[in-house]
């Protein structure tokens, strides 16, 4: 199973983290999760994951946006693909979402994320070299 890459989930919902983690692990990924932005950045430095799933709204609204900016500014972390998990479009925090900036994110996934979609994306960015398209 070591053929698949390392995935980091940054989300303040421990149950969602557990579920996503279980799904990804069952598919052969090495998965860790962080319950807040700063912890997530720390783990990125430690683990050098191949892919990050990042929640936008955590304890602080748009905390995920801040995390993605930190990633973009760090020459080492910048190379890691980031997939944003959102339910922001019509949420209470929609007005806080910075539409005038280009976010450091490769993909946006709407919550609830279908497991099949989650695995497809994970395989696309962090799958074994042979199965990586392109």
């Amino acid at each position: 199973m070591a053929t698949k890459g390392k995935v980091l989930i940054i989300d303040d919902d421990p149950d969602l983290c557990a579920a996503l983690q279980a799904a990804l692990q069952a598919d052969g990924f090495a998965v860790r999760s962080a319950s807040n932005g700063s912890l997530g950045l720390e783990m990125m430095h430690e683990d050098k994951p191949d892919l990050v799933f990042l929640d936008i709204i955590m304890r602080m609204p748009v905390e995920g946006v801040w995390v993605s900016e930190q990633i973009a500014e760090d020459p080492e972390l910048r190379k890691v693909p980031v997939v944003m998990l959102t339910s922001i479009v019509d949420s209470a925090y929609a007005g806080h979402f910075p539409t005038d900036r280009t976010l450091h994110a490769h993909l946006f996934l709407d919550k609830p994320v279908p497991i099949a979609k989650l695995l497809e994306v994970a395989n696309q960015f962090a799958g074994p070299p042979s199965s990586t398209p392109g």
Partner: protein
Amino acid sequence: MESRIPFETELIERIAWLISLRWLAVLGTGAVLLLARLLYPGKLALLPLAIVTVIIALYNTQFLFYARALEQSHAGTARLQQATRFASIQIVLDLLALAALIHFSGGAENPVAVFFVFHTIIASILLPRGISFLMATLAALLFATIAGLEYAGILPHYHPPFLENVELYRAAPFLLMEGTVLALTLWLVAYMTSSISIKLRERDRELVQSHEAVLAKSRALEGVIERLRRIDAERTRFLMLVTHELRAPINTIHTCAELALAGASPETVRDILARIKKRTAELSELISDLLRLARAREEASHDEALGLVDAAAVLQSVVELMRAEAHSKDLFLSMDIDSGLAPVRANADRLKLVWTNLLSNAIKYTEPGGIIAVTLRQTPEHLVGIVRDTGIGIAPEDHPRVFEEFFRAENARTLSPMGTGVGLAIVQRIIDNWGGKIWVESEFGLGSKFSFVLPRADV
């Protein structure tokens, strides 16, 4: 009182108008003098007439400056009195000047005496009715004095150039007749003009008052609209917050359920199902809290039926119910109630909810071995309820936010992931609805103290 202010500005405006009129009179008199000099050379006492005209021009210049100063001075009753006095002086001077002009141009024989009507009209427009009658009388007296003195030969008589060889000024019946008619005319004019101007002034006053009433009403309405707008904005914000708070757990439950259905290992499925069960319980609790909060908010807009409530009995029943929970967590729970407490105007069920929320928070956020102390005391005007614990406390930056809907402090989340963040918002709403107040004091890591006051029903 306010209605006097427009009258005052009006008076000051009319004084300016009077000064302009006087310039016209000066110019007119000058023109007439020049014309008379051409038509009747050597037959008119031009010098004294010219001197009087110059005197009028001189005092009018003075008035001009004084009127400007008055216009810029502070508005009020004092200024109104000043303006009235100023207008009276002007009219008296004008009467004297006209009397002098009449004297030097033929006395009672000069029909220009009719011009006293103008002064009377102006006085009746500008000044109170009594003063305008006084002015009319003064004008009549001035005419009588000139006619009398000329008749008696005490004052010289100047023949009007258009009336040669006629000596009307010595004809007593004519003088009496003319004087009487003039006096009557002046009084009638004073009466009629002041009647009209009093009516107009009253109507002005009514207009100003109704205008002010309309303004006050529109200001009040603006206030109401602003309040409704704020309430509406708050409702929308609240609704959006609620939606977010509801959607997050539903998304998680959905993903968990999908994973369980996808055929994960039995241990994983068991773990996931346990999480689903916990989250649905939380959601259900959140919905109950939201309903309680909605009710508390609703009660703020309608006056709910309040009764006299024995706060001590309510507190005792709540503490009895929660004692087991406190003991199971190895917490020491003490209760201290003043005797002979006055009742409060409240609702027993809602007051029970207040105590329950405060106490369950204390139990939830105090580590085993800690102490929770509940006291209920009485001051001359209030009942004071206090729930104190030796729990995790609240960080200073969170103090202003603990009563916010859905707010949960970081340390509270860490210790107890379950919690809706609505409990204290409900408590605050209820206490507010009853005219009370709640506040928190806390030292981070050492404990919290929630205190509330409710007005005594017997004061």
